[in-house]
């Protein structure tokens, strides 16, 4: 690290002071950025009483899970929302990893007529804002196929995203072609090459892809909001929004709901932090 001045062994304490000063600033900013989350969790343990601004408190005054109970008893489908989110996110994640791997490998290592054009079309499609497709997609699902309020409607448009295909292709291109050719000469078929060589060599990138896809789907609000009309088929984000709409004055239960929607991702984040942090840079630095 050459940006900062290096101190000799006699002046080590100066480096210590500098680092402590930097740490104080950083912790101060971190406290501010983490504050909304802290506040959300702390407030969720308050009592579910109708209250205006008077109930603000930065430190927990009471500890009760009543607000969670209030949230879950609001709708008969509260648990179902969580289940729906889990099902949708899990299916989309698995399908994305499988199909993005296959297509990414094909675009990176196989030669077939049209492969460049197809990949180029994928790339261009990635840049089209979703506002363009939202109306026709809505018409397709609701008016033409008539499948609103089904898992198919929630899942199908995200089976495999252009972005994930692009990500897989970028990474697979860097795999040594010689290994793949050797396997081919040994009589290994293409599906076996993917299964036995490509996937084992790409575990990290595929884990990153899985986690980011799961996170994106879990937090996805817009599409489920459009295609789920019945409470039964809503995801947790949509249910949460409707809950807040009906209970604006119930502060603590709203925070309980928000905590419930965020907590699974926090747990995932703290157990798989490395992949999350890598997931942020993977599209940026290499792409």
């Amino acid at each position: 690290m050459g940006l900062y001045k290096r101190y000799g062994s006699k002046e080590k304490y100066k480096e210590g002071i500098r680092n402590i000063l930097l740490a104080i600033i950083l912790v101060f900013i971190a406290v501010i950025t983490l504050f909304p989350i802290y506040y959300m969790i702390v407030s969720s343990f308050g009592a579910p009483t109708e209250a205006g601004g008077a109930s603000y408190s930065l430190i927990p005054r009471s500890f009760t899970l009543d607000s969670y109970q209030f949230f879950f008893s609001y709708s008969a489908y509260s648990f179902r929302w969580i289940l729906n989110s889990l099902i949708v996110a899990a299916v989309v994640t698995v399908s994305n990893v499988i199909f993005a791997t296959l297509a990414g490998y094909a675009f990176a290592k196989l030669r077939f007529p049209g492969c460049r054009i197809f990949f180029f079309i994928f790339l261009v499609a990635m840049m089209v804002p979703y506002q363009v497709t939202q109306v026709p997609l809505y018409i397709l699902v609701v008016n033409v196929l008539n499948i609103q309020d089904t898992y198919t409607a929630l899942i199908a448009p995200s089976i495999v995203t252009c972005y994930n295909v692009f990500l897989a292709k970028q990474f697979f291109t860097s795999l040594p072609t010689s290994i793949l050719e050797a396997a081919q000469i040994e009589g290994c078929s293409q599906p076996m090459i993917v299964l036995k060589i490509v996937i084992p060599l790409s575990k990290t990138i595929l884990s990153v892809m899985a986690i980011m896809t799961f996170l994106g789907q879990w937090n996805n609000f817009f599409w489920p909001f459009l295609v789920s009309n019945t409470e039964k088929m809503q995801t947790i984000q949509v249910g949460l929004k409707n809950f807040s709409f009906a209970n604006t004055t119930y502060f603590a239960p709203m925070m309980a709901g928000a905590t419930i929607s965020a907590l699974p991702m926090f747990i995932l984040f703290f157990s798989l932090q490395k992949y999350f942090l890598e997931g942020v840079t993977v599209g940026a630095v290499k792409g």
Partner: protein
Amino acid sequence: MKKLRKEAKWGYIFILVPMGTFIVFTLYPIISAAVISFQRYKPIGSEWIGLENYIHTFKNNLFYKALKNTVVYSVATVPLSMLISFLISIMIIPFRKRIQSAFKAAYYLPAIASGVALSFVWKWIYDPLPSGLLNSVLRVFGISNQNWLGSKKTAMLSLVIMAVFAGLGQNIIIYIAALLGIDSTFYEAADIDGATFFQKIRYVVWPMVKPTSVFLAITGVINGFQSFQNAYLMTGGGPDNATTMAGLLIFNRAFSYFEYGEACAQALILAAIIAVFAMIQFKVSSNDVEY
């Protein structure tokens, strides 16, 4: 020859599902959007009305207001977030890997929480009553009570602050990766020339992370142009459309007024604006790299 044919066969099989998904859920909707934009949409028997949707859009004052809001929002959010992230990244890098990761995680955590959940918290932070959180904090500094989301003066600012906070973590992680990629010989050369810390930042670090900055600026602005969720959940576009941005405008056209044709026309105009902007940015930044 036979090997190549086999390879081609597997190639097509492997891209079959992505291609199918793409055709049904991306390509078809894009074409369909173009068609609908020239129609007055009805479930059966849409009417062709030529350029009327486009003309109507360009005559609509709210359209220009939404574009202006979108630009203000992006232009305020992106550089602010980048600058803060850059400074924080610089402060993080002298620490050991473990501490770096801890800070990265702390700053990234808000990006993990769902937008809906965060919008609840921010709504109560921006509570207009004197007992509201932000109001109570600012009173200490002698700043009078503000109706954050309810006043035309502060509504956009409130959304910008929220977006800056949510985006910090991602930018910091990307900047740190770029900073750690700078070869130490550059710093050594600067040291030999007697460069101060701030000169090193100005003449070594800043030019070296420029590609990253360009990337963050482009993706940030593109995302900003498409932003919808915060405005929808926090202000609903109000007060008096002060926070109505392109994404929300199109959403309302389509799903509040059910004017699909006009919504598609507006979406295509937005796509064109984004495309032109992205091309200019790429051009400018590639010119810069050459010099």
